[in-house]
């Protein structure tokens, strides 16, 4: 599904965030991306949904060279995947309901089906009673769950989750992981950057460790693997 060949990313200020990275992510895979703070995990994921363009190499999604597609084709790409942003990126002027519905509106879904799907997914992340609230009336963890809801609401084939449990207590985090597992079982590919050792160690999947923009470890059913 995703194939990276010698992908590199140098930010305008000269920081090398990705350094000739080679990687294959197969269809239906569940991939943990781990690594220290500032290693390049978010950069790695931003390139997949084309928030950042690689400055070198080739990044193919289903054969499509993401670094080279025209600007006007980017929305189509993004609508096919669900992204959970590290900083949530909720629209402050929309309610929780509207924020989640937005992801369906952009694909032109029916108003009636929107309603049902949004309420279902809000129920799933435990925020049914916050549907009418605005993001700044929510706790950190609640905002994170809205971001998760928005990412999964239109059942994308590929989910990019950047630190999706960073603001959640372990119990809620496990609940979210169950949702991901369920989505994964139904065939979706999941790429998840995380610092959560417990989760990586207990729910075993392929783990890649990034350090200084390079893959330093790549294990099927791996563990978090940083000892303290």
């Amino acid at each position, binding site marked *: 599904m995703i194939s990276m060949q010698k992908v590199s990313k140098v930010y305008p200020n000269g920081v090398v965030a990705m350094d000739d990275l080679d990687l294959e992510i197969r269809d239906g895979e569940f991939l943990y991306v781990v690594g220290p703070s500032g290693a390049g995990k978010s950069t790695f994921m931003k390139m997949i949904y084309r928030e950042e363009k690689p400055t070198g190499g080739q990044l193919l999604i289903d054969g499509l060279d993401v670094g080279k597609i025209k600007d006007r084709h*980017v929305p189509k*790409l*993004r609508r096919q995947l669900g*992204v959970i942003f590290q900083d949530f990126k909720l629209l402050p002027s929309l309610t929780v309901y509207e924020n989640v519905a937005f*992801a369906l509106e952009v694909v032109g879904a029916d108003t009636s089906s929107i309603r049902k799907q949004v309420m279902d997914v809000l129920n799933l992340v435990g925020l049914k009673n916050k549907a009418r609230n605005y993001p700044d009336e929510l706790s950190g963890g609640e905002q994170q769950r809205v971001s998760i809801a928005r990412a999964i609401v239109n059942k994308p084939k590929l989910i990019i989750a950047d630190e999706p449990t960073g603001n959640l207590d372990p119990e809620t985090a496990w609940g979210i992981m169950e949702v991901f597992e369920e989505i994964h079982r139904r065939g979706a590919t999941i790429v998840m950057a995380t610092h959560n050792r417990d989760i990586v160690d207990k729910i075993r999947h392929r783990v890649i460790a990034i350090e200084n923009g390079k893959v330093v470890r790549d294990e099927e059913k791996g563990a978090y693997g940083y000892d303290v």
Partner: protein
Amino acid sequence: MMFKTSLRHLREGFKGTLRNGWMSFAAISAVTITLLLVGVFALVMFNINEISDNVENDVEIQVFITRTADESSVEKLGQNIEQVPGVSTVTFSSKEDELAKFQDQLGDDAAAYGTVEKDNPLHARYIVKAQDPLELEEVAQSVSSLENVDDVKYGKDYIDKMFAFFNGIRIGGLALIVGLTLMAMFLISNTIKMTIFSRRREIEIMRLVGAKNSFIRWPFFIEGLVLGMLGALVPILVIYFGYDVAYSALQPSLDQLNSDIFKLIDPSTLTVQVSLVLLALGAFIGIWGSTTSLGRFLKI
């Protein structure tokens, strides 16, 4: 674009105006103030133009009739003048009328000239107006070649200067209106740009969630339209009712001057036209300001 999507854009456009309450208010009041200025100046300029037209149309050719012409040939001359192309009205003023006017002018001193009355030295005249004051010269020339015309006078230098002066005023007025309109456009689109600039993060998020540019643009289009039209509302009301009031207050005292020149333009047609122009201007600038400024935030 599907129907339900259009509905959504419409809804979001209106909601957007409400959500950004304070910013919308600031934008609307910028529209209000600048359009009010444009509208009021437009009215003033239209009226100055009208009065200039009136003055120009009031310009006359004095046709002095030869002292020897008898009554029937004077009448004949009058008919001939009327035939001249470009002539609009012809009025006769007899020797006696002229003398009366002259004595009027002299006032107290007139008595001293009492003697001239019995041997009136003045010419009878035809006073001729042209359909188009700019053709005055041609008309005067045609008339001067007619029989029994002693002399033709129309103050060429004076009239040329006057026309140049009025043209200056017209051009100045037009420049002022155009300038004010451009200024209004700049200020309004500036303000609207600021409201959008302050929402650039939102726009960025929309793009990250996969919204197409058109999907983002339409609500802003509607919002710009709403801002522009709401902003045009007050100027339109002020002009619609205000001009009526001003007209009713000023015209009567101008009427006292007993002149065809100082006639303000009738409110009925003018205000409707100006109002429509303001509405269109508001709507146009609103849309223009909001959609053009979006561009720079719609780069992926």
